[in-house]
């Protein structure tokens, strides 16, 4: 059954209610409700196929919901096209990295500033977009600095290592100027030292940009260190939610991961 929605102690940014998505007979996300508070790092864990990525896809408009609602700052999100969700202030990275691979790192980050810039066709053609372009350029370099890739700004994104691609995806997501950042398995494909510095990096980003962060992650030490609260999905249902330590001790969670009698 759905876990009880906890009383938020600070302001609620995201309010998910009874979110459901069916694919034919399969219920990938089943009646999921939760609140995410401003500024927290909210972990989403669960066994493979539990519906975590589908939940992210619902939240960012990539998959239309079967039913349920999601409010962001009091505005409904479900049913909006992905670019509208991005414009509202929610941005994401992808589990299976979806950078613009044949384009340079710099251009990847410039593209993602689309919703925050305005030059249309004619302003571009007549070069009346200089000030805005300079701004876009400057911001792109700053974001590459942040993820430590500015010395490789001109290289094709597809040539980067997994770890670097994940960091570039975070820079690209930040370029949309989000208030909520959704990270889908940011540590996957990173080596041990990269994983080690990821916790500090995500915190730094959260503080620097005043973000609320939702993160799907399998790497247990990372989740335990990073997240303020953790929700556990199993077969599309939310089976536990709370601080990482208590979730880790929850018998239902142990059963979901290790199998029951």
């Amino acid at each position, binding site marked *: 059954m759905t876990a009880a929605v906890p009383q938020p102690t600070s302001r609620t940014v995201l309010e998910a209610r009874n979110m459901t998505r069916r694919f034919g007979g399969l219920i990938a996300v089943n009646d999921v409700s939760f609140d995410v508070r401003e500024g927290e790092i909210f972990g989403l864990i669960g066994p493979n196929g539990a519906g975590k990525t589908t939940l992210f896809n619902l939240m960012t408009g990539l998959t239309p919901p079967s039913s349920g609602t999601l409010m962001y700052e009091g505005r409904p999100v479900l049913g909006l096209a992905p*670019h509208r969700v991005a414009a509202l202030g929610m*941005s994401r990275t992808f589990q299976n990295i979806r950078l613009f691979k044949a384009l340079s790192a710099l251009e990847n980050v410039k593209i993602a500033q689309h919703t925050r810039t305005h*030059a249309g066709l004619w302003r*571009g*053609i007549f070069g009346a977009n200089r000030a805005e*372009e300079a701004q876009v350029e400057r911001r792109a370099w700053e974001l590459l600095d942040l993820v430590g890739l500015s010395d490789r700004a001109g290289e094709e994104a597809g040539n980067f290592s997994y770890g670097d691609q994940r960091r570039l995806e975070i820079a690209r997501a930040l*370029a949309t100027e989000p208030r909520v950042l959704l990270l889908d398995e940011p540590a996957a494909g990173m080596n041990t030292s990269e994983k080690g510095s990821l916790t500090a990096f995500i915190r730094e980003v959260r503080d620097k940009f005043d973000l609320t962060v939702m993160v799907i992650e399998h790497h247990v030490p990372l989740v335990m260190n990073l997240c303020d609260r953790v929700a556990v999905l199993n077969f599309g249902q939310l089976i536990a939610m709370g601080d990482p330590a208590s979730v880790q001790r929850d018998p239902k969670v142990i059963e979901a991961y290790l199998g029951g009698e």
Partner: protein
Amino acid sequence: MSDFLQSYGFLIVTLIQAGLLGLSLYFPLMAGQLSLASPGFYALGGYVAAIMLTNPAFAGLRDTLGNGIFPLTWLAAGLLCALAGVIVGVPALRLRGIYLALATIAFVEILRVVSLNLSITGGAIGIFGIPQAFGFQDRWQYLLIFGPLLALVLAFTYMLQKSRVGRAFRAIREDELAADAMGVPPTQYKVLAFVIGAVIAGIVGSMSAPFLNTWNAKQGTFDASIAILAFVLIGGSRSMWGPVVGGALLTAVPELLRFLQDWRLVINGLVLVIASLYLPQGIVGALAKLRKSPPPARPPIAPAPDAKGGTL
């Protein structure tokens, strides 16, 4: 000089025309959309000009405007093709890849069959006796309108590519879903790219009708779709110079090999096969690989408001 223009002027105009049609197909391709609709819009633009220049209904307008009628035909063709581009593009661009290509071929065929059967387009005979633009005496004089048009389209393309709209096109070409998630509305930009291509093809058509003196249903055919696609593929689909080089080359080679008589078509076919085997990025793409582009220059920390961007 005038001897040279007398002999080769017609050919040069044809080369430019091919390059422009290549560019009209290049625009949808910039946004990752394989559209073969260019000959349809080219034919449409030509009919607009042919009708405005010969139909008795426009006689009064022609008398009032004199040579001013010619720019007006370009404008009318451009506007009508933009409108047609939106009407065709919005539903067709829901399709992807080869299905979009097929839908656009269908559009070209429908236009061809309709123009064969309407009386305003002259039916199967077409429209003939179209007056020469600005009273030109020689075909090479058409360089004076096609040349500036090519320069204008290239400048337009260059500026567009380095603008926010150009970035949106490239993002959609690379990964439509990721572009959407990063705030770029794909449908809007796909339709825009398609419409720009339609307008270019239409204006080229409206300039070509007086140039060819006659306009009929043979102007927009499936063969032309494939020929124009070949311009872009041989020249290179990742640079605006690709369609121009490809269009010029594929138009010039059969002409220059005229002394080979029927063998020239064999050579033309060989060029196509060899180029697609050994230059998958096209001629311009292969040349661009030889020249390493410098890393993007970082703007100064506190740039002046009018600071130039990087190399992108």
